[in-house]
């Protein structure tokens, strides 16, 4: 994160991402609690629906950015030794990046399954 992104930008990223996370997160929670998919095939079809897939593809990076700013804040507050802080920051950066790549490929695979020859098993 650049020096400029360290203060105001990080703060605004956290605030704006929070708005989307609350809105889309509420939609996900309501959908999964009140109309849960009956089978994996139904779940994949729901995830692959264009609007839901688009929403998820936006939700995943914003959630990760929000988490990154929050984790960074906690580590800046509590971890003083430079090497340890860089180490822990790197660990969380890789963890979040890995989770993001995995989650995005899951949505893309669902899209591919829906547009492919059909779901089996």
């Amino acid at each position, binding site marked *: 994160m650049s020096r400029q992104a360290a203060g105001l930008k990080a703060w605004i990223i956290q605030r704006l991402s929070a708005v989307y996370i609350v809105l889309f997160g509420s939609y996900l929670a309501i959908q999964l609690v009140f109309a849960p998919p009956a089978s994996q095939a139904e779940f994949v079809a729901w995830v692959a629906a264009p609007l839901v897939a688009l929403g998820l593809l936006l939700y995943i990076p914003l959630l990760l950015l929000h988490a990154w700013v929050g984790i960074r*804040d906690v580590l800046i*507050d509590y971890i003083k030794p430079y090497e340890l802080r860089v180490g822990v920051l790197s660990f969380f950066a890789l963890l979040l990046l890995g989770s993001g790549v995995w989650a995005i490929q899951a949505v893309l695979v669902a899209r591919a399954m829906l547009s492919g020859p059909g779901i089996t098993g």
Partner: protein
Amino acid sequence: MKIRVYRFNPERDTKPRMQSFEVATRPGMMLREALLDIRALDESFGFRHSCGEGVCGSDGMNVNGVNCLACITPLADLTEPVEVRPLPGRPVIRDLIVDMSQFYLQYKAVQPYLIRKEPLPEQEIPQTPAERDRLDGLYECILCGCCSTACPSFWWNPDKFHGPAALLQAWRFLADSRDQATDERLDALDGPYKLFRCHSIMNCVAVCPKELNPTKAIGHIKELMLEKAV
């Protein structure tokens, strides 16, 4: 009334201790008077005080876990036993006297004075009543340090985070129509530490003896920064 006070003399003691005193209370008695009675019993007991009416900001201390000014804290409002400790997070010089140097350095860092780029006029610079009103709730700060020493972000980063008292003053000069260094002041506040360590915990608001609101002032600085950035 039973009052337990923090005792520590770094030149003599290896660790701090709490010492109990029984103080005879009088109607309307403030904590400062009780501490003066304690000092009459033990003249080695140290605490700062001066005006006795909540103006000088000298006798900030932590009473039953809450920062306050002893001179305007009625004993009748306190639960026994009253535990009196120094302001948290600051190095103790002796008993309730703490070293506030870092607090003042942070205050100095926000350049708490009007900065003019134009030549100073012969007469005063007039303000409209509305411009003057913007300073209400800001200029009243007496720098007692109750807010900054109650702030966890200031505990963790007292050398880098300006703290609520200094940031309240930063906004006091940003909000002043006569000041001409808005951009420089905002540039100086950016980065992860000086302003943005504030997580709106609001301990500062809860303890301010003058009922000021540093969290709101910090929010105004962030809004102004955003406004200037887009």
